[in-house]
């Protein structure tokens, strides 16, 4: 196999991703991510993680707020440490730790687009449910050692008032509608008409309820995301294309093809150790699917992959210790394997 074939495969893969098909879902998704970073007050979310916050709220909010709070990936750590030691405790902290990278609007949107809505939906639901289940299990397993160790510091979690929920819903709702209609299979001109209507509505929402600074901040954050993530995504896509011709397909189909326990387990373990930069798990898993990976193992990889990696495990270990980290990793791998097998048997 020549260098040309390899390069060609990489480039072909790139062209597949630089299509209207993909961009119509990625572009709105970037704007949504930018909106979350700029407009959702972290202080407003933080108060759900205080030591005296009702536990069910702490878990619930932790499972979905990863995308809101962990905008800079290095900020996951202080937050995790803070929630663990001074706030709601180990359980919600672990829930947040897992959900942060997993509940990523860009990744879920791209997964649905490139690998089918079933996998996208399964990934989204799986990530939320997982994070709560793992958090609860960790809290239960280590309950005796987790008696209040440090003094309560409710002050840290006092939080601040965010924008009125209605305003936020109007803004994000419209963006999501643009995303959904943009990617729906409806006649082109109907689509154009609907999107124009939605954009006008958005303009009204923005002029009424948001000031110039906020809009600027939104656009700036969106652009920062694009600069940060898009180039790496393209590299991931190219690499995935290269892998498709370099790796013999029977390696893939024999190790992770079908829906056996070993296929799902291998996928989970590999996912947990491998480091995936934001969004790059999508082109890589898609390439593996094309080469014969089963859908169950694919989900297992998508669930275990983004939240865990070897470097990440080492760092988490410095906050919660080796024993807890090992249990955490084991829980993730086990649950991912099981979920993969169940999903694989449902979609066949």
């Amino acid at each position: 196999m020549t260098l040309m074939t390899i390069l060609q495969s990489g480039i072909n893969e790139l062209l597949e991703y630089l299509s209207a098909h993909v961009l119509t879902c990625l572009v709105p998704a970037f704007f949504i991510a930018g909106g979350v970073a700029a407009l959702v007050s972290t202080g407003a979310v933080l108060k759900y993680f205080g030591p005296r916050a009702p536990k069910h709220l702490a878990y619930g909010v932790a499972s979905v707020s990863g995308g809101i709070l962990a905008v800079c990936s290095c900020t996951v750590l202080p937050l995790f440490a803070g929630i663990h030691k001074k706030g709601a405790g180990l359980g919600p902290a672990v829930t947040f730790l897992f959900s942060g990278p997993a509940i990523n609007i860009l990744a879920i949107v791209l997964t649905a687009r490139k690998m089918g809505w079933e996998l996208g939906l399964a990934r989204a639901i799986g990530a939320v449910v997982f994070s709560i289940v793992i958090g609860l299990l960790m809290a239960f397993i280590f309950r005796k050692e987790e008696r209040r160790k440090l003094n309560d510091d409710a002050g840290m979690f006092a939080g601040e008032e965010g924008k009125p929920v209605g305003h936020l819903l109007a803004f994000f709702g419209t963006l999501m509608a643009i995303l959904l209609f943009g990617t729906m299979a409806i006649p082109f001109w109907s689509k154009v008409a609907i999107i124009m209507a939605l954009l006008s509505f958005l303009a009204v929402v923005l002029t009424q309820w948001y000031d110039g600074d906020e809009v600027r901040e939104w656009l700036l954050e969106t652009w920062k995301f694009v600069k940060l993530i898009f180039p790496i995504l393209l590299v991931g896509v190219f690499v995935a294309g290269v892998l498709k011709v370099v790796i013999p397909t029977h390696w893939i189909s024999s190790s992770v093809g079908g829906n056996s326990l070993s296929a799902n387990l291998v996928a989970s373990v590999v996912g947990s150790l491998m480091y995936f930069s934001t969004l790059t798990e999508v082109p890589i898993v898609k390439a593996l699917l094309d080469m014969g990976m089963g859908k169950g193992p694919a989900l297992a990889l998508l669930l275990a992959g983004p939240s865990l990696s070897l470097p990440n495990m080492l760092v988490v270990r410095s906050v919660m210790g080796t024993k807890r980290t090992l249990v955490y990793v084991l829980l993730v791998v086990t649950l991912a394997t099981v979920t993969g097998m169940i999903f694989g048997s449902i979609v066949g």
Partner: protein
Amino acid sequence: MEIKVLGPGCKNCKNLAKVVQDAVAELKIDARIEKVEDMDQIVQAGIMITPGLIINGKVKSTGKVPKKDAVIKMIQEEA
């Protein structure tokens, strides 16, 4: 005046340190700028979302990199 920039070392934290340096240089004040990268110290200081900015012991900003003018204002508030 004591200014602390807290963060484990990612791009945002370094940017904040730079903005703070520029602000201090422009105000021509005598300030000690300290970069805190140790996780325990960061949490102890009450910073949950990095980067964090603490001036003379008061937490002035968390989770974002304020523009130089905003930092100047924060410094003047705590002077």
